[in-house]
């Protein structure tokens, strides 16, 4: 789960990674082209997930990730290091995904704003009384993965993008705000609404499909 502030150790790791990336970029630009593979390898997965959540099609998402990486390679000399390399890559991916959606004339057809907001604009959570644990077999059978993917993809775009950058890519509020040209306060509001919409959408479905079993969350919570 994304955290608000990095610990000093995490900050050191980030700085080390940035230094390694700067060194790799320098080597690529001076002729060691194959270093580009190492540069992008840590980000393949999260860029794919971000793009997939936008275009909602695995084949298109894969094509867009490839185009993103090639565009990054061709524009690498223009990367000034003012932002993180990962944020720069994500910005390219978001532009590519949006271009793909525009080209296909696809827009969000599912808007849940009105459904989930009261007159004060606040999202209401689904008021369950007993949250049962989710059986491991359900996750393994992909039912749960599918439910979650569908719910994320059905979020209106402005909420979905913030949620994916923050809770899937684990960007900070500030990075997300910079990337989307928003104020940090707006990012927090959108993130909150996105999470409430997901809770509202998923809690009843998971509760319905879930037999009375407990214990799997202890397994999931062990994940760092």
């Amino acid at each position, binding site marked *: 789960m994304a955290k608000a502030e990095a610990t000093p150790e995490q900050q050191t790791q980030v700085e080390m990674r940035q230094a390694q990336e700067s060194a790799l970029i320098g080597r690529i630009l001076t002729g060691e082209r194959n270093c580009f593979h190492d540069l992008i390898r840590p980000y393949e997965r999260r860029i794919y997930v971000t793009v997939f959540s936008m275009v909602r099609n695995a084949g298109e998402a894969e094509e867009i990730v490839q185009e993103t990486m090639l565009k990054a390679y061709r524009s690498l000399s223009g990367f000034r290091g003012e932002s993180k390399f990962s944020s720069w890559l994500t910005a390219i991916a978001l532009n590519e995904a949006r271009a793909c959606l525009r080209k296909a004339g696809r827009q969000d057809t599912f808007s849940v704003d009105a459904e989930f907001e009261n007159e004060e604009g606040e999202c209401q959570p689904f*008021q369950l009384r007993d*949250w049962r644990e989710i059986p491991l077999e359900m996750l393994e059978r992909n039912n749960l993965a599918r439910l979650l993917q569908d719910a994320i993809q059905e979020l209106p775009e402005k909420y979905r993008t913030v949620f994916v950058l923050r809770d*899937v890519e684990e960007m900070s509020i500030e990075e997300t705000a910079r990337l989307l040209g928003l104020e940090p306060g707006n990012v*927090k509001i959108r993130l909150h609404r996105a999470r409430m919409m997901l809770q509202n959408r998923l809690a009843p479905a998971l509760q319905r499909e879930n037999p009375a079993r407990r214990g799997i969350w202890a397994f999931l919570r062990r994940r760092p």
Partner: protein
Amino acid sequence: MRIDCQEAWKALSAYLDGYIDPVLRAQIERHVQFCEVCSAVLDSTRNILYLTADDRVFELPGNFSERLHARIDEVLQREAP
């Protein structure tokens, strides 16, 4: 001072992320001790975030990485950055 369910929900996201005033944090924690609805809402939202971060939820297509690097290789062979 006690808070009600609406106030607790409004601060839920900030609570989960940790960027929250310590007084409000303590009020939420006290509230969910006694409110089973908010306790379940908090747990379900937190669990959805744990799931979102689980690699098994968003699986890459088979051989995704191989195809990506093969495509990059084609370009690396013929183009300088």
